[in-house]
């Protein structure tokens, strides 16, 4: 399942509902992304996440479907926020549940790596000099390349 929302989410509640009643789950891999107060050498006050409604949901659904093709997942949830976020705020949540930990941990990493280069979100940082659009990181493209078959 995927969700794109401005609101915060409750990690404990999301995980509980993900695994509830499914006793075939042996492991859940999770990644939670937070807003840092340092981006490079500039202290940031906050950031605004812009996204492309419609395409964002579509890409996230495709990413989830690809993970489910590659690993035997019992459950999968991606939540990504948009709008203005402050340091310490949650940005993204990826959780994958499987019978075994390998599938859970690998698919979790796959999803966050893929999402970073495919899902149409853009970060605008508030810096002392005004707003600054974050540049795409080459390391993110390299991380995705690991998964390209």
């Amino acid at each position, binding site marked *: 399942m995927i969700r794109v929302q401005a609101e915060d989410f409750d990690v404990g509640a999301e995980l509980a509902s993900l695994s509830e009643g499914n006793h075939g789950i042996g492991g859940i891999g999770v990644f939670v992304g937070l807003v840092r107060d340092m981006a490079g050498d500039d202290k940031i006050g906050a950031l605004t996440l812009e*996204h*492309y409604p419609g*395409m964002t949901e579509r890409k996230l659904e495709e990413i989830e479907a690809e993970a489910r093709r590659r690993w035997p997942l019992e459950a999968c949830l991606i939540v*990504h926020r948009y709008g203005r976020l402050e340091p310490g705020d949650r940005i993204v949540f990826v959780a994958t549940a499987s019978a075994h930990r390998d599938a859970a941990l690998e698919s979790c990493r796959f999803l966050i790596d893929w999402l*970073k*280069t495919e899902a*149409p979100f853009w970060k605008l940082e508030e810096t002392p000099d005004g707003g600054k659009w974050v*540049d795409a990181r080459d390391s*993110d493209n390299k991380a995705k390349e690991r998964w390209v078959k």
Partner: protein
Amino acid sequence: MKLLYFAWLRTRIGMAEEIVDPPSEVTTVGTLVDWLKTRGPGFAEALKDPSVVRVAVNHDYVKADHPVRPGDEIALFPPVTGG
């Protein structure tokens, strides 16, 4: 066709979306971008480096040779930085 601009392409172009009716030689993403660059300094500046412009037609990433048709929703934006 409907054009959408995001992130710094939006701020440089100065507009989030518009409906356009390009000339008949605009048949692909590449010829669309070439035509857009003639529409003013904001467009020329925003689109000058094709290596940092991604294009999606009807929510799918496409390349320069992908056809564009009336009725398409075409989005132009920089490489994504979410997550």
